[in-house]
């Protein structure tokens, strides 16, 4: 069955120039392998395709049961240049939590 990431993880996001970062943290350690397997860089790039114009990188932090995503070209130039409400990428975090992944019942 499909489940939204909001029920499996929490998250915080921020910025570095025109790049948004999203730290995705498993709500329980047992969910972490599921996140590693399904929330791939390619999958996240597809999820955000209408909102970013650069590539997505993923880093693993098994010690924190967390994944870190870098979304390049996400902030309309970023910082003071950006015209976006979310110029610093603060709520890309919960946008990722809208993603649905396949969970075995």
């Amino acid at each position, binding site marked *: 069955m499909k489940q939204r990431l909001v029920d499996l993880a929490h998250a915080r996001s*921020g910025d570095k120039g025109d790049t948004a*970062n999203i730290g995705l943290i498993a709500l329980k350690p047992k969910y972490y392998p599921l996140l590693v397997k399904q929330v791939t860089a390619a999958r996240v790039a597809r999820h955000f395709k209408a909102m970013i114009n650069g590539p997505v990188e993923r880093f693993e932090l098994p010690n924190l049961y967390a994944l*870190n995503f*870098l979304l390049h070209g996400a902030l309309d130039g970023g910082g003071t240049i950006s015209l976006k*409400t979310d110029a610093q990428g603060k709520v890309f975090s*919960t946008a990722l939590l809208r993603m649905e992944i396949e969970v075995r019942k």
Partner: protein
Amino acid sequence: MTGRPATVRVAGGQGFWGDWLEAPYRQVTGGPVDYLMMDYLAEVTMSILQKQKSRDPARGYAVDFVTQMERILPTVVERGIKVTANAGGVNPRACAMAVVAVARKLKLNGKLTIGVVTGDDLLGRLDGLIARGHDLKNLDTGRPLKDVRDKVLSANAYLGAAPVVAALQRGAHVVITGRVTDTGLTLGPLMHAFGWASDAWDRIAAGTVAGHIIECGAQCSGGNCLYDWQRIPDMANIGYPIVEARADGSFDIVKHPRTGGRIDIASVTEQLVYEMGDPRAYITPDGVADFTTIQLSQPSKDKVRVSGVRGKPATDKLKVSVAYFYGYKAVGTLVYAWPDALEKAKAADRILRQRLDDLGLEFEAIHTEFVGADATHGPLALKDVDVAEIPEVQLRVGVRARDEAPVDRFTREIAPLILNGPPSVTGFAGGRPKPEEIVAYWPALIDKRMVQPAVELIEA
């Protein structure tokens, strides 16, 4: 120095210039602390301060810091708490003199030594550096700084903990710096107190992680915490974080008793991943921390233990933050009400864009958001939403251009839409938007040996 302490407590007092004014006072009075660190400098702050200094040579620092010091200085002196702050901006010496004046007013003269850290300001040296082959290439675009040299407003190297340590060793009670890294303001006190060597890479990394956790104030102690947020207690009375460190580099994140908020593995983890790049290489002037080695545990309520942090040697570069004049922008808003609020706002946006086009105005970017519908989550937000029933939508249009004229003309095209555009529109009480100057940020690297931090002591 006689003997080393078993533990050292560094309190985070300000996460940015504009953070809670009550926090520093609460941190120094709410329980024992050895150091108070306060971070004031965001990337654009330096250019604002440089502009102030060019108008008045006695300005160019975070004036709020001086107001804070007036409030906390009697406690700080009485309890022997030391303060580290990058409130000096582009004029640390003037900031120190303002604190000296406050100390004298409080009759604390003779009881206070202020350490002033400078050497980060490269503005006056830029032409020389460029002439000697330091291109200061933009880390994002690869362009050399000479392309925008005539527009540069400020240029500062990020200094690390070393000059903070030097100031503390020479007896400073308050260390006021320019562009010292946020993490250096926490690491410096730990290196000083425990006598950590500058090449004790694991300890440097641990102190850096400690600094990263508390540099955003309450963002690690329940603030902006998504995990179980409804049940985080007494947020009105939120406790700011304290690092309680041991000489081996392990440390606890705690807060004063009888404060609100919550410190648990979730709240600390959220802060650890904040603004993270490659977690294996968190690079500072002091060393490189590997965030994949961090081990967290929770020994008791509102206490998270951090251990196992591993580090690598520092690089031979320093980051440089250059601010330069980029152009102009303006943002206009109008609010459309049910029914079909989103459709009305979209129609208004189309009309506005056609009028801008018909006027022949040229913009680098026109950016439209429908606040209440898709401003923050884009099209992801409108899945499964009955769009016609959305109660209200704020149309928010921003424009950006190198010249002011098209931006100024844009600001006069918003209000007319109230009478000559789609219906059920309101929310224009604020008047027409104002064109704003854009000061952009240019990240670069420089050889470390080109930057010499300096420390000066001033007796109050």
